């Protein structure tokens, strides 16, 4: 009946050192208004000067999404009044944005769907208004004012919340791969607005759309879109019309509601900013940046599968976060470790700890070097798999090094044949009845004997060797 048509506008904060038009710092978390210089404050007489790194980052993005890079793009003023917009206008791009006509693929149930990206343009971020600090006043912090943003606008090619989240995650991964943004949704360096409308399945005529702002997690994007689709369906089912408006997503109530602010009535009166000249980007510069592009997710995926013989599934997990894929490769570096088992260890063991505690790679308490050590001990048979898991838990929780834990707890796996033979002899002696049953044909008892040897050794015996020696002894006893 109703088909949803979704387009996303993503605002990505670029991780430059200084702001897009001023040399003030962009670092997060500074005390209010300590990183707002004269230009950011919009003092009388100040002028903007464009940050070259922001331009390069935009070009990188454009190349990565196969877009056209404009040789002479223009900055425009978007005029409106709001206290966190110091100049009374935002410097943005209107006609002639720096990047246009790109695309990115998403995986929809095993099929590739191409999502077109209409444009990506540079603009400055506004400051922050805080409304709940004082009773009768709102307060303004302009530290964020002037931080460079790239606004990525997709065509309305997304058909449901799941696709939208996939697209969002791909862009998120991409900007981190390109090292142009932290992509931190909690800190606000990656923000998403969704435009949602419904249309009849058999019609090409688009419905009236609502814009949902203020969605700052992947989960909320999914919820917001689903809620909105539901809300609009109900309106249309009742024969009414959807109002074209801006709505806010309320994550607590899990609903969208209409914004009361006057942004609706605004005529932004865009015109080219006379304080800035057209940004001249030569083809040479574009070529240069192209040659120095970091390895992008899709290329990395191909390489991982090829080089490490990993499955598609495992690779997808490892590469989604660039830092994790780097961590993985660093673990493997200069070791004999098996890539597949290493990948498996990371995906099953390490990630379960990381995900449970929401720890980012850069904050892992276990360094890649230490994990490599641990896995090498395992690989060489000095510890068992079970022991390794126990040691890892200690490494993760206490930050200890594997060799220290092993020494302290004397965990070293016993592989000495003589020692183990002693234990095997003990077990056989103590369970001679079961041994007889085994020799009579009850093969299942073998596992029991292994378990008993392990118990005798307090878990330290190398299971492989136990197996081998047990088999030999029992064979001989026959």
């Amino acid at each position, binding site marked *: 009946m109703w088909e949803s048509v979704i387009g996303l506008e993503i605002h990505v904060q670029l991780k430059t050192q200084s702001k897009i038009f001023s040399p003030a710092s962009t670092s997060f978390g500074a005390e209010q208004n300590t990183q707002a210089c004269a230009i950011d404050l919009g003092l009388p*007489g100040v002028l903007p*000067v464009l940050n070259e790194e922001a331009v390069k980052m935009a070009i990188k993005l454009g190349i990565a999404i196969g877009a056209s890079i404009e040789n002479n793009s223009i900055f425009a003023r978007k005029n409106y009044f709001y206290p966190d917009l110091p100049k009374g206008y935002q410097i943005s791009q209107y006609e002639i944005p720096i990047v246009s006509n790109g695309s990115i693929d998403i995986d929809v149930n095993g099929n590739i769907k191409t999502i077109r990206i209409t444009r990506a343009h540079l603009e400055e971020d506004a400051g922050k208004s805080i409304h709940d600090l004082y009773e009768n006043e709102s307060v303004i912090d302009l530290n964020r004012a002037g931080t460079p943003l790239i606004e990525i606008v997709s065509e309305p090619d997304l058909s449901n919340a799941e696709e939208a989240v996939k697209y969002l995650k791909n862009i998120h991964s991409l900007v981190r791969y390109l090292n142009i943004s932290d992509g931190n949704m909690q800190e606000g360096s990656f923000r998403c607005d969704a435009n949602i409308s419904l249309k009849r399945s058999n019609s090409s005529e688009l419905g009236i759309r609502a814009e949902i702002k203020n969605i700052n997690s992947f989960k909320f994007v999914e919820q917001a879109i689903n809620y909105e689709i539901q809300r609009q369906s109900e309106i249309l089912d009742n024969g009414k019309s959807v109002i074209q408006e801006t709505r806010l997503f309320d994550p607590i109530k899990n609903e969208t509601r209409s914004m009361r602010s006057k942004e609706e009535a605004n005529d932004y009166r865009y015109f080219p900013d006379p304080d800035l000249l057209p940004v001249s980007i030569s083809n040479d510069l574009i070529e240069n940046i192209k040659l120095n592009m970091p390895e992008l997710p899709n290329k990395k995926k191909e390489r991982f599968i090829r080089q490490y013989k990993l499955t598609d599934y495992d690779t997808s997990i490892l590469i989604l976060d660039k830092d994790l894929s780097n961590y993985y490769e660093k673990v493997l570096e200069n070791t004999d470790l098996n890539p597949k088992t290493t990948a498996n260890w990371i995906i099953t063991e390490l990630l379960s700890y990381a995900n449970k505690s929401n720890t980012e790679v850069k904050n892992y308490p276990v360094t890649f070097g230490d994990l490599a050590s641990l896995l090498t001990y395992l690989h060489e048979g000095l510890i068992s798999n079970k022991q390794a898991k126990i040691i890892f838990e200690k490494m993760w929780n206490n930050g200890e090094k594997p060799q220290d834990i092993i020494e302290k707890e004397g965990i070293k796996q016993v592989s000495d044949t003589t020692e183990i033979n002693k234990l095997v002899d003990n077990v056989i002696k103590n369970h001679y009845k079961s041994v007889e049953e085994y020799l009579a044909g009850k093969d299942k008892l073998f596992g029991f004997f292994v378990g008993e040897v392990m118990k005798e050794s307090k878990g330290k015996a190398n299971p492989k060797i136990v197996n081998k020696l047990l088999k030999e002894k029992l064979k001989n006893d026959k």
Partner: protein
Amino acid sequence: MENKTLIELKTEIQNKKISSYELTKFFLDRIKKIDSKLNSFITITENNALKKAKEIDSEITKGNIKPLSGIPIAQKDIFCTKDIKTTCGSKMLENFVSPYDATVVEKLNEAGMIIIGKTNMDEFAMGSSNETSYFGDVKNPWDLNCVPGGSSGGSAASVAARLIPCSTGTDTGGSIRQPASLTGICGIKPTYGRVSRYGMIAFASSLDQAGIFTRTAKDCAILLSHISGYDPKDSTSSKKEVPDYYKECIKKFEKMKIGIPEEFLDGLDSKVSEVFNESVNIFKSNGCDIKKISLKNSKLGVSAYQVVAPAECSSNLSRFDGVRYGFRANDVNNIDELYKKSRSEGFGDEVKRRILIGTYALSTGYYDAYYLKAQKIRTIISQEFQNAFKEVDVIIGPTAPDCAFKLGEKLNDPIAMYLSDIFTVSTNLAGLPAISIPMGFKNQLPLGLQIIGNHFDESKILSLSNHYQNLTDWHTQKPKILGAI
């Protein structure tokens, strides 16, 4: 002393014939004695100026002398000055003290100059008569019942009255040249991008330029070299090398081809025409070829200007919202009221008028017909100038259609006021340099001659101006009222 040129003063200071302190005090005394009649200053920085003068004198005794050490200058109150109020002639910035210096101010300070005060101006540089200032009208020293021109009325009047040897101004549609013409002094507007706009409170960003008032072309040339040059803080400033304009302008005069647009002579006042023709004859008999040219669409300059300037200013003035600095209205119940009351009380009528026109011109549905159209007219006007400069070196004409008008005469007729800029606006639209120098009198009020050059041809226009001043003495005439004061 008050009639000495910059060069003369420079020599006196260097030769220790006079100290900076004495010189500064001298002009301060003149200002205190005379300026109440003119109202050309908003702020007089007596203590700071004398303190700096003493410091400079001490440096001079140690042998540290800078190019313009110890010479006082007045800054138009549109240039941000650290520790001195910058009001822009408006209630909105009545108590505003900038935390930084404009680049122009920095450069002149570095050259050793002493800021003696901030001059009065039309509010936010919008006006042609200095009658819109929150701090009262400025009077023309030649006739206290007449306007000095605007928007840099205070800067012009103070130099004309010899209260100061030189001052800075800004020119968006004629705001240096027209007051220079009406007060009988030299005023130069350089090529767009020649001088940094950083710290110069913006009116119309693509038209504004900082410039100089002096009594002689040579003095203009000296100061122009000091304020010119690329500024990394101003993206629209030019990297083109800055010549020694003084050297260039005193070079032996070479033949020049001078163009006179017939459109500038259309319907010209008969006396103005007569005076202008005398100047033309002087050029003719002194090494210049005169050629009639046509700037067919120059008249459209006023219309285009009345769109572009307000449009840009409507956006530039949005920052004055009472939140972070400037005037904030009391007793407001919500943010909308804060904006509306602060801006309505803080801005004068002319400013409000221009903001409204500008907002309209940029609004949806009107952008193409107004703003875009005006920018296209700009291209046409610019092309016409370029074609003309293929045939001639410079273009001349009267700076203003008439001499100074009476206070209040045009205040209620904005259109008449705008039309007084008819000869000057097209140069701003095209970004060309132009100077106005005294050329004679009508009814004992000064008339100015405008010389327009091609981009970055300041040397040519200064050279021609100097040549003219070697052959005439209009620039040495003093307002007679001063004798009676």
